Every structure is written in C-alpha cells, then in structure tokens.
C-alpha cells in the first residue's frame, strides 16, 4: 500500500506507475479512488442514473509517442479509445469532448491531420464531438500534443451489469475479437529507436458497431472490457480479481500475428502483456458462444475472433495459461515495465 499515507510511500512517480499494470492499479486505488470516494469495481465507464436513465461517462488522456504511427495517430486513438470505453460498458456512445494541450511550435499541418482524423473517426463511430478546450504551452513544456477526452452514452436496456462482471459464472467462455499486441509493435516500430522495422499496423479501431452486433443478438453477455495498456493479461487478472474466480486460457488459441510473435520472441516480450487499441474481451455463457462468435466474425474488426478460455470454478483468483506443451503457467499482473507512452 504505497499511497494511502506517507509511511512507506514511494517518493516519486515512475514510468511504471503509468503502464497499466499492477502499479497503475495501486496508484488509482490508493491515491485517487480513496480520496475521491470512488468505489470498486472500477469499470471503463462510470454509470449514473439520471432521472431514471442509465448513462455512462468516461474520460481518458492520450500522450502517445510518436503521435503518428502505422494505423493511426493520436487523434484517431483518442476517439476510438473513448468510444470503446463506453461501448464495453454496454452503452451507446453519443457525445465526446476533446481538450488539447499543444506545444508552442507544433505544425498546423499536423494539427489539421489529427483533427480531421478525429472528425472522420467520430463520423464512422456515429458520435458527435460537442465540446472541448485548447491550451498552448511554451516549447518544451509538453511533448508536441496531449489530448484528453470525455465521453457520454446511454446504457442499453439490460446491459448495466456488463462492466461489473457480477453475472460471470464458472463455465463462461472467453472470446477475443482478434490478434493481440499489434498496437504496441506498431508504435515501437514507429519510434525508430530500436533496430527493427516492422510492417505491423496498429489495431486502433472503434468497436461500438461490433459490440452492438453482439448485444443485438440478445444473447446474455456477462462481461466486456477493452484491452489497452497492460494487454490481455491485465484484463484477465482484473476479471479474476473482480469475480473471485479462476481464469484459464489456452496459449495456442490466443491469436497473435506472426510478425508480432517474432518480435516478441526476439525482444523477450510476452504478447499477452502488450497494448491494444481495437480489442475487446467478451465473456458469455457456453450455450451463447456460437451465436456470439458468429456476430463478432461478421464485423471486419472481428474476423479473426477466437474462443480463448474459460472461467473455472477455482476460487484461487488466478489466471492460468495452458502452454503449447501441455504444461501450465501463471499469468500474473505485470509490474509494468513494458513501454511508456503507448497510448
């Protein structure tokens, strides 16, 4: 417990606190949530009942480096990320706000590209950007451009449980809509600091249409969460912690594109911990699995969907991976070393 009081407190914030793993979780819980009076479970969007209507609200900030990468840019990312946070809560995303902190000297040409991407992505997703703010700071006081968004949507009938995982039961199946790790690899490649070039493109995409397809089937959906920093492993661990149940996944069922695999082998990364920006974990009862998979696979962002695992009856709150040799390993919450400024 590092942030409750000054005893035993970490003295400085390090990059690890921002990488979406265990340390980020601790920071959120102990620094912010306790002081703001926020209660668990912490979900991608907050749900508020406003005059009988359940509304979802979310906020996010984007500090990605570099701001242009294969498959997108910081603006597209900002819209997709916010839309996805609302969609996985079972909401229809409606309105976004966008605040910009821009460094003095930032090229107007680049700003136009970013803003036009945002407008295009908002159109694709069917959301409106309705408010915002702009600040310019002196050169060197912010790295090119940071974007902060908020999003608001209306929870679909009967969907308010989805983000909380309260309906998750042993035997439920875990589905992922496609290969993991592409966003991290695309961004790493774009940084050009490392001695490799890759053809991998970020999976940055708005998932609300895919999620609507799934919810339109009227099948029971017990949980959804989008994978961002900290990757699949983090979401699986969060799910396990929220439900108190064990999670088991099969390594060879988890889709990973070959170039991502190769890079991970080379660099010693585990693709299960890499960031994604167009992936969602969906948990459904076994009898709904086939129908949900069909709905997911009918969308472009779900063509390579796979059933990757199961909720077990174990009360051990652990995520176990069955390896390709038939052995097992524990998939822990990552301490958070991987990559700074990945989203």
């Amino acid at each position, binding site marked *: 417990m590092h942030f409750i009081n000054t005893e035993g407190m970490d003295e*400085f914030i*390090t990059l690890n606190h921002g990488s979406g793993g*265990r340390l980020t979780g601790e920071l959120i819980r102990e620094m912010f949530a306790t002081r703001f009076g926020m209660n668990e479970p912490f979900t991608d969007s907050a749900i508020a009942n406003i005059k009988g209507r359940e509304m979802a609200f979310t906020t996010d900030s984007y500090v990605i480096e570099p701001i242009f990468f294969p498959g997108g840019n910081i603006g597209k990312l900002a819209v997709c990320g916010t839309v996805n946070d609302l969609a996985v809560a079972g909401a229809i995303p409606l309105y976004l706000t966008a605040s910009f902190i821009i460094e003095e000297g930032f090229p107007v040409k680049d700003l136009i590209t970013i803003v036009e991407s945002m407008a295009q992505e908002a159109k694709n997703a069917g959301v409106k950007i309705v408010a915002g703010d702009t600040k310019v700071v002196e050169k060197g006081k912010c790295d090119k451009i940071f974007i902060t968004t908020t999003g608001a949507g209306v929870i679909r009938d009967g969907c308010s449980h989805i983000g909380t995982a309260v309906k998750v039961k042993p035997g439920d199946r875990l589905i992922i809509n496609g290969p993991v790790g592409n966003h991290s690899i695309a961004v790493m490649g774009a940084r050009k600091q490392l001695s490799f070039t890759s053809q991998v493109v970020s999976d940055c995409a708005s998932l609300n249409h895919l999620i609507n397809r799934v919810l339109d089937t009227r099948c029971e959906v017990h949980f959804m969460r989008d994978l961002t920093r900290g990757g699949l492993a983090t979401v699986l661990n969060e799910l396990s912690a929220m439900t108190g149940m064990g999670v088991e996944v099969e390594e060879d069922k988890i889709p990973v594109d*070959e170039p991502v695999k190769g890079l991970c082998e080379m660099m010693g990364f585990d693709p299960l911990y890499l960031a994604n920006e167009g992936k969602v974990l969906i948990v459904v009862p076994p009898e709904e699995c086939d129908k949900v998979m069909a709905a997911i696979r009918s969308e472009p962002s779900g063509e390579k969907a796979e059933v990757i695992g199961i909720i077990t009856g174990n009360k051990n709150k652990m995520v176990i991976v069955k390896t390709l*040799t038939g052995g097992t390993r524990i998939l822990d919450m990552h301490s958070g070393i991987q990559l700074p400024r990945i989203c």
Partner: protein
Amino acid sequence: MKYIDEYRDIRLIRALEKTIRREAIGSYIFMEVCGGHTAAIHRFGIPSLLPPNVTLLSGPGCPVCVTPVSTIDRTIELASQKDVIITSFGDLIRVPGSVSSLEKEKAHGADVRIVFSALEALEIARASKGKKVIFLGIGFETTAPGTAAAIIKAKESGIRNFFVLSAHKIMPPAMEAIICDGTEINGFICPGHVSTITGSKGFRFISEKYNLGCVISGFEPVDIMMSVLMLIKQVNNHKFLTEIQYSRAVTVEGNLKAQKIMDEVFTLASNEWRGLGTIERSGLKINDKYSAHDAEKVFSLKGLSENLRENTSCLCGEVLRGRKRPTDCRLFAGVCTPDNPVGACMVSAEGACNAFYKYRRNG
C-alpha cells in the same frame, strides 16, 4: 517460424516424453547454466513433462543475476557524472544496487537509455558528440564478441566518446567452481548460444576432467527434451562425452572469427560473481590497446564498499549455485517479487526466481 516451430512440434515432445520415461531407470540431476535455458524450461513447463526421478537445477547462467552489486553501484556513480549517457540492456535497469538502481536514477533525471545492441549505443555516441556514452557490457561469450566488435568499430571510426564498462564473464570457470563446490550433479545441459561462439571444445573439460555428462542444447522444448534424453543415456552407459544436440548452430571449433575479436579486445581477469565469490580468469577486461574506450580507466570511480546492503535473507547466491530452490528463500513471492525485487534472480527474465514466480508459483 522456421527453425522454431519444428522444435515445438507436440508430437515430438510427446514422443520424447515417452522415451525419457522409458530410459530413466536411475536417478538424475542435471544443471543448466544458461539464462535462456532457465526461461525456456519454465516457460514450456519442461519439469512437468519429466518423470520425478529426473531433476533439473538452475545454475549461474543468468548474466544479470551474477552481476555483483558493485557493478550496479559503479554504473550509478557514472550516471551521476556530467554529460554522461548510460546505455544498457533492459534487464539491468531494475537490478537493485546497494542504495539505488538505474531505473530510480533515471526517474531522478539521469540519462539512462535501454539499448538492444552495443552498436545502438555506438550510434548514440556518434549522434551525441558533446556527451560521453557508456555502455554497460553484461553477458557471457554470446554477447562479449558484439561488445568487442563495437569497441573496435569505435576506435576505427574515431568515435572517441564511446566507452564500455565491461562486466562480461565467461562460463567454464563458473561451471568448474560449481563442480568443485560439491553440488551433486550428474551432468550439464550446456549453454547453446555461448557454444556457438566457443565451440563444444570449450566444454570438453566437463566430461574429460570431471566425468560428468555434457550436452550442448538448443532452446526449444524439443531441443531441451532431446538433450535431457542424451544426458540420461550418457549416465546409463557411464560414457561421458561432450555432445552437441544443437548441431544446427554449434560446432566443435565454434566461431573462430568471434573468438579472435574477443582476444583482440579482452584479456581474462579474476572477477566477482554474485553467489560464487571471486573466480580466477573468469572476467573479460578491456586490454590496453583499447583503454581509451575503457570506462574503468577513463573515469575515476570512487566506488562504494562491496555488498554494502545485500539483504542477508536473500538466497540468490545459494540459488545460483543450485544449492537452494527459489521456494526455499523466505523472501520469495512475499517481500521479493518481480515488482519489488530484492535480489537479481528475481529481476531478470532469465533468473531462476523470476521464472519460478511466473510459471511455477503454485506447483
């Protein structure tokens, strides 16, 4: 992926499992001395595929783990000097020194950068003329030739602001120390990539001098299982040889060009190994011809006392010698975790404690 997928073929793994079960008529203890093997063995769950009478021990094969605290302290001292950029492989950033770590120093403003190659560090030096770029050279014979090549290139290209703090070590003396230490071992799974450089000739002493089994192994599950089988057969037949399982990359002579480059730049010196103490002629020191690039010679280092605050409950030393398992350590998975590592064995992905924590914590 070619040369990887074939060696992960589940049919071959199953067949090796069956054959090992059949051949393992006695009791066998084999030690691996390569961080890559430690990680692979645990990642692929090899121990769960072996019968209970075959035990695999982890030795001092993780270059990060055997790096003494004093090396980290010296690097931190260098980091605090003016206009210095420290470049290092990623794993070392989190290793605790006596008082701090490179990661913590970076958070306090030191210019510490992760690189994947000595050549990258050299490029940084080329591009940062006003700075002194120091590369922390950690690794065994697999990595040392690359550092040597970078030093030679720096000299030839006139890149005067590139320096290396060499903490490179060689494997055979450490293996000899383990054998002489009396740890009960029937044979070694020998380091596959070190051997691509040294050749199997570098490990002949294991079978010839000490009558222990020796098989140079690749890193995929099929390679490792096959090597275990070959070792079992050596023990069963009382015929101890230095065999090459990893024949697609290892020869008897090794990489003569790389050996020559190492000899050009380095000389052997006695060196401190965490857990093993000082071992004669086990470290690679930059020789006088290249002293202009030797961080030890160029920078004056005050140095802190050795092992100032090495936690006495930390069993890294015993774990590295194969005397204790990570689970024997009081601190394991409690105070000492990958988030909050006390000893180096927990920091590095090649360390026994880290591998155990990730893959075997619950049996």
